[in-house]
């Protein structure tokens, strides 16, 4: 067991013939992910890697292949349309890797996808990795091994650090979920913590947060009231100055809210052990 994706996932890649899409499709196929179709408007009928059929639209791809998850690699200005298209074609799980989607677009996308009961991961995220079963995103497959630690994070490479640090001491993960660094995204910490709490394969959870917003504080409330499994956390941005966007669109301290200190305090009072740096996480999990 795992959450969100596994070996039964039938994955569709939107933007499969672009340079990013093609590169990561190759990586995902090599990992063993079941990539059943790709979409690039105007390139329907072509094949990628001699085995993945390309379609002109998501609707046609779903009809022909029964795809049940879609990953989006199209440029930011076209990504909102790609998310609407996936939702309208009846895909229940959409993962948007693209960084730089305009926030008003994301508010429209999120409200529309909620009405259609579509689960969105991202945007501006590294996607999902269920080690040994499916890699749906850009997390390097070789840095994680199967295990019982669920990982959820707002960051990309910082998550790789954590997976790598776990692997160094022989610890593996059930599923790693990158929820993305944008202020308006699809899936938040609580959604994923709830899934891990109910996943028999997951015994412990690592939650990696950062400055900006109040999702970590809300997660802390959820952990103290609803979770039985131990959670270890790390919060990035202790030294970030207020009012400056730290790379991620959502990583900003505004009007005194969203500081790392507030988040650490909230998590610690919920019984979460907060690491001082990411390489400390494995020892806190033991």
């Amino acid at each position: 067991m795992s959450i969100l994706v596994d070996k039964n996932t039938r994955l569709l890649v939107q933007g499969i013939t672009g340079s990013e899409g093609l590169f990561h499709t190759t990586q995902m196929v090599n990992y063993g992910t079941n990539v059943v179709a790709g979409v690039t408007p105007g390139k329907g009928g072509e094949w990628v890697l001699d085995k993945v059929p390309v379609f002109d639209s998501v609707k046609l791809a779903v009809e022909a292949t029964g795809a049940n998850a879609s990953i989006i690699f199209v440029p930011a200005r076209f990504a909102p349309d790609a998310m609407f298209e996936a939702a309208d074609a009846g895909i229940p799980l959409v993962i948007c890797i693209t960084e730089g989607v305009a926030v008003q677009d994301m508010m429209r996308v999120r409200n529309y996808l909620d009405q259609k009961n579509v689960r969105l991961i991202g945007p501006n995220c590294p996607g999902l990795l269920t080690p040994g079963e499916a890699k749906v995103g850009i997390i390097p497959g070789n840095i994680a091994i199967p295990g019982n630690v669920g990982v959820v994070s707002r960051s990309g490479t910082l998550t790789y650090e954590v997976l790598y640090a776990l692997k160094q001491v022989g610890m593996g993960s059930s599923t790693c979920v990158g929820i993305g660094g944008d202020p308006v995204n699809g899936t938040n910490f609580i959604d994923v913590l709830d899934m891990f709490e109910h996943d028999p394969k997951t015994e412990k959870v690592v939650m990696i947060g950062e400055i900006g917003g109040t999702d970590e504080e809300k997660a802390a409330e959820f952990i103290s009231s609803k979770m039985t499994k131990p959670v270890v956390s790390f919060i990035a941005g202790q030294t970030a100055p207020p009012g400056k966007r730290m790379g991620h669109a959502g990583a900003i301290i505004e009007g005194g809210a969203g500081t790392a200190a507030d988040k650490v305090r909230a998590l610690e009072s919920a019984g979460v052990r907060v690491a001082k740096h990411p390489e400390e996480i494995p020892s806190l999990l033991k």
Partner: protein
Amino acid sequence: MKLHEYQSKQIFSKFGIPIPKGRVAATASEARQIAEELGGRVVIKSQVLVGGRGKAGGVKLAKDPQEAEQLATQILGMEIKGLPVRKVLVDEAAAIDQEIYFAITNDRAAKKPVIMASAAGGVDIEEVAATHPEKIIKVHIDPLLGLRDYQARDIAASMDLPREYWKDFGTIANGLWKAYSSTDATLAEINPLVITKDKRLVALDGKMMIDDNALFRHSDLSEMRDIDEEAPAETEARKYGLSFIKLDGNIGCMVNGAGLAMTSMDIVKLFGGEPANFLDIGGGAGSEKVAAAMRIILSDPNVKAVLFNIFGGITRCDEVAKGILAAMAEVKPKVPMVVRLVGTNAEEGRQLLADAKMITAETLADAAKKAVAAAKGA
């Protein structure tokens, strides 16, 4: 991207929101000329992209053109929170009866735009928010539907705005929604929206922030960016698609990924150092971008050591190493450099750097400790 008051009010005016008559001036004599054209009393307002201009003495009332010139001379020589005043807005003065706060912004928790309005407007809205949050009315807007007329009426009624103003308030609310939505703003704020003694609603001040990620569809707004208002290194970094923020410490940091870049800063601090910057070279950076990043870091004279922390995923460590070597050949840095390469093509990267006399590290903690020690020794 922040817009100046005069730019924000121009946008408001385009969408039917009444603003005072006035123009922007770069010299005191221009300010005098505008005051002469307007006649009567004028307000001289510094145009800098920080809050608290009034409290800092950057907003003054002038009774005639001569005083306007004097005050403009004074204000144009000022620095407000470290930013030199290069322009002033000269507006006709209004006789004010009441001040209202009225804004639309993104509510990231609700995933919707939110209107915030208060009959207790004016300079101390943050104070109101802290002490009397109940005096601020919040109404969410469905991003798929837009602002509905009844919502504007409800807000007017909740603020106890007299009925005679409801129609004009509705026009302003609609105008602000259109200004916000058609410019991809993250904030469109009128503070204060005033009721004048001659019973008109006028937007006396305006503030807008535009989503940088949406500028691709607003070339007219991109041209409004005031690069005088940001650190030159930040402007240079944006040109190369680098995310860079200057800080006050002495350890330069070059990292791939925003979360890891923040973490690298934090860990430098944890081991007793101070980061000189935040710098994310992004995913899949080539050697040219890395070289530009290194030039930017080394242009800061405070930098006493540089920490490279690269976790190769899409980014290839050998590409990063090539960029480091190219930049070293060009800039000839005199400060020690600590490098940590992990992940995709890390071994190739390390070999490329083997002759470069750099300090190497295996773990993030080790890299930070070595950088802190190097900065202290330099």
